[in-house]
């Protein structure tokens, strides 16, 4: 069982660092969902199935929808954010997607 826990913990921490570092908020939200889903698998492994169900439904489901709605409302729900200070470095030869 240790190798499974090791893989999940490493993936979760990697996704958490990605939340800190990624430029696009769409990708940040995806990385945060990965953290939440890994957490719910860990809850199953530590014999807490009820907490795992709640975490998967509320942490990964409802909360992601909440974040997505807010991101869409403020206009960050796209590839090229264009926000000053959080600007996306334009890749050469690639047009920003609308």
């Amino acid at each position, binding site marked *: 069982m240790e190798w499974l826990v090791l893989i999940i913990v490493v993936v979760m*921490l990697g996704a958490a660092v990605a939340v*800190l570092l990624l430029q696009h908020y769409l990708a940040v939200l995806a990385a945060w969902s990965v953290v939440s889903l890994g957490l719910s698998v860990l809850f199953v492994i530590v014999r807490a199935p009820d907490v795992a169900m709640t975490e998967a439904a509320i*942490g990964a489901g409802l909360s992601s929808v909440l974040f997505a709605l807010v991101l869409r*409302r403020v206009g960050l729900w796209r590839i090229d954010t264009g926000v000053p200070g959080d600007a996306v470095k334009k890749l050469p030869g690639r047009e920003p997607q609308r």
Partner: protein
Amino acid sequence: MDMGTLMFAGALGLMLIGTAALVLSGHLMRMVFGLALLESGASLLLVLTGYRSGASAPIILDGVVPASMVDPVPQALVLTAIVIALGVQALALGLVLRVHRAYGTFEMREIRRRMERDICDQAGLELPSSNEVPEPYPGSPKPQQGEY
């Protein structure tokens, strides 16, 4: 390394990264994400306090109590904490939305500067500025009023 140590390390790492996102990032949206990470790490840490290796889930089937089961109290608390975390995130996102509607930006420094200026305008005061502002180097642009 055994399973419990590994998961404790994961929980502490999640809390550390969430705190780093709160402290190091100047973008309000990323700070809310950091808060969510911090809450996830805290809930994993709480569940792990009741974990016992080799024990079964705290479920009583047909009136038979398992010989060795995990402590169910932290699990019940964490169940509540997850739902409350959703409420906290919704509140934080609501505040972020209001700030974005008022100032049109997510940058902490910019928002703080303009908020301070607005408060001073409302109260009819001068913008507070420190007397210890260093003299600008010759040739460097003059600092704006209220920059410091």
